[in-house]
């Protein structure tokens, strides 16, 4: 029950970054300054999930030093009136394109913004790495090809696509004894996408979906849906969406309706640690017996070290997309370093270093490499369960290559 959160910390972070940036030099030493753009939705409700990704990326950039170059970060926020805005996302990408020092970009966060940004960055040959995009159509198939417009891959992502995560949870739920499931989604691209994938797999495996509906982001009243789930006689619940869409509110409403004991499944949208504002923190005791997934391996060697660093910097635990943001920046930095080693740092050399070489990057998420369309080849889904007020690893599903 903490009342005031540690605000000002992110302000301090920005201070640190700006101090680091300004301390080096002004933009006049062109050719020496390299900038990594950070393009995320950073106000309103988007901030809750995208904020950690920014913090992670800024941390990675801050701790990097490259001989003979000054590495800067430039953060642009494309949320408007609290929601990510594809129009602004595209405009921000154009801003990065127009800034010659920018050699790579971390972002975007949402797939709609991805669809708006990828054609721009692709035309400019500017590398971008998304910490969170999971919509398959951004890279795969005709849709992906249309976004790239026949050009070389310039967009990579560290999260594996929805078409794996949803089914993984479905397989696990089935194994865990779920037969009659009630599905609720947040009606947005992520929530609905993952719920659709879950539903398809669950039905394929012989499960019954006893009810399915969606409540848009911003809904606070989940009692009607909880009662509907009760009336449908569900034995398990699936929620497609993120914590700030109302996952813990739904869980609480279920408990109020007397369904608090049912297993509650979600994807990585609710796997956000135990800190302030997290699923576990808000749902409290009701969070027990909840399951979530994460598109990453569980046993990352550097995880604790990263958390220590992160906590030292921002005064809070690294949670949610902090890892992915950090990993993205790590990959971009590795690319830049490779380009520096090659003697010529341009957008093209950085892009090629990350995408074309097929090399693996050691990141906080483990070893990451990319396939021919820029998706991570680390296709591992880890599953977690809330037990005793904390997420406990239960198993891992490897979809291989």
């Amino acid at each position, binding site marked *: 029950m903490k*009342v005031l959160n540690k605000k000002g910390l992110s302000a301090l972070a920005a201070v640190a970054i700006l101090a680091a940036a300004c301390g080096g030099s002004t933009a006049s030493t062109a050719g020496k300054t390299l900038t990594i753009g950070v393009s995320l939705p950073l106000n309103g409700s988007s901030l809750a999930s995208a904020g950690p990704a920014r913090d992670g990326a800024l941390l990675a950039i801050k701790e990097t030093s490259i001989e003979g170059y000054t590495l800067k970060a430039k953060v642009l926020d494309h949320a408007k009136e609290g929601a990510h805005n594809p129009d602004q996302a595209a405009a921000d990408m154009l801003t990065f394109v127009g800034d010659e020092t920018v050699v790579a970009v971390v972002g975007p966060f949402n797939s709609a913004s991805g669809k708006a940004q990828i054609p721009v960055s692709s035309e400019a040959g500017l590398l971008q790495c998304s910490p969170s995009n999971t919509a398959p159509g951004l890279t795969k198939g005709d849709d992906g090809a249309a976004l790239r417009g026949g050009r070389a891959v310039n967009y990579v992502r560290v999260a594996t696509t929805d078409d794996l995560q949803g089914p993984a949870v479905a397989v696990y739920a089935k194994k865990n004894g779920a037969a009659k499931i009630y599905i609720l989604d947040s009606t947005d691209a992520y929530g609905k996408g993952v719920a659709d994938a879950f539903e398809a797999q669950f039905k394929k495996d012989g499960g019954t979906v006893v009810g*399915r*509906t969606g409540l848009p982001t911003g809904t606070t009243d989940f009692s009607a849906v909880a009662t509907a789930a009760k009336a449908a006689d569900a034995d398990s619940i699936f929620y497609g969406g993120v914590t700030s869409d109302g996952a813990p509110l739904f869980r609480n409403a279920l408990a109020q309706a007397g369904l608090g004991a049912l297993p509650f499944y979600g994807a990585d949208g609710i796997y956000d640690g135990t800190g302030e504002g997290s699923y576990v923190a808000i749902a409290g005791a009701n969070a027990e017996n909840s399951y979530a997934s994460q598109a990453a391996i569980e046993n990352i060697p550097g995880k604790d070290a990263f958390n220590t660093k992160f906590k030292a910097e921002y005064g809070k635990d690294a949670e949610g997309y902090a890892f992915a943001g950090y990993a993205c920046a790590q990959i971009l930095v590795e690319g830049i370093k490779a380009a520096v080693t090659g003697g010529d740092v341009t957008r093209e050399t950085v892009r090629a270093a990350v995408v074309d070489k097929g090399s693996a990057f050691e990141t906080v998420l483990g070893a990451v490499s990319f396939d021919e369309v820029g998706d991570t080849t680390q296709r591992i889904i880890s599953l977690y369960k809330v037990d005793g007020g904390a997420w406990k690893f239960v198993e891992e599903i490897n979809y291989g290559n």
Partner: protein
Amino acid sequence: MAAADVTSSSSSRPFANARLPFGIFAFLGLALFVLGIDQFVNALTLGAIYALVALGYTMVYGIIELINFAHGDVFMVGSFVAMFISSSLLGNEGAITNIPLLAGSVLVLFALTIGVMAIVGALIERLAYRPLRRAPRLAPLITAIGVSFILQNVIQFFFGPTIVTVPQLVPIEWSIEVSGSRVPLLNIFVIAASVALMFALQLFISRTRTGRAMRTTSMDRDASSLMGVDINRTIMITFLIGSGLAGAAGVVHGLYYGNTSFNLGFQSGLKAFTAAVLGGIGNTAGAALGGFLIAFIEVGASAFGYGRWGGAVVFSLLVIFLVFRPTGLLGSHSGDRA
């Protein structure tokens, strides 16, 4: 205004007084039959909260014909004030099972929150709306939007962009049995508290001098000014009460849902505005009815698996309804043009 009076020939309806309660009972009966007791209670509870917020909307509209887009955010601020008072000042952690202590805590919580929010509302009126009293009608609408941005982002700055938990003082386990269904006392408490506040408001408006001043001001500001009503004071009091009710709604919201978040205001504001219009904007009883009606529609949509269409259903019904009754359920006050 005069145009409306001349064109819409008002035919007197001899059974109007009897028709309304009958309609309400018929509707409630039908809703109970269709939804079942659990969903019925859900809808009533949700409706009670909508109604409290809608009251403030409609009061402000009635008196200065302003669509107060900031009102939803005043409600949101109210829920945060309640959270702050409850958890930080009163040091509550969760449910209180000691009944006298519970009653005391809840009363103090209501009193403090309503007080703080009344002051906040009055301040907003003084700073953002009063200077525009004689300005074109849409000018205060834009300041209302500005105030809404300020409130949201100030709260976000202090309390963060995540969902924040609020102590649920009334234990959710307490319940009574109604025809085989478990009805939590919490819901009954929420409904009772809201209805009590609504009745208090009705009494205040119809019985007190200030209430009468509010009514005459809403009918004709200039005339009531000539009759000796202090217009600025009356409008200020309207804001005090409207925001106080929003504060009460904030308390109720926190107690019922156990959480709040900085972006609570937008959706609630929209619903409350819809409720106010549906009921006949400017009419307090209508706003309360509208709030309940919207809650029933929404809960119905969710109950039958059309949750994602909820907003569309509410608004479609609203459009159709207004086509047949252009001044809302209990419409009296026909707004002037933009």
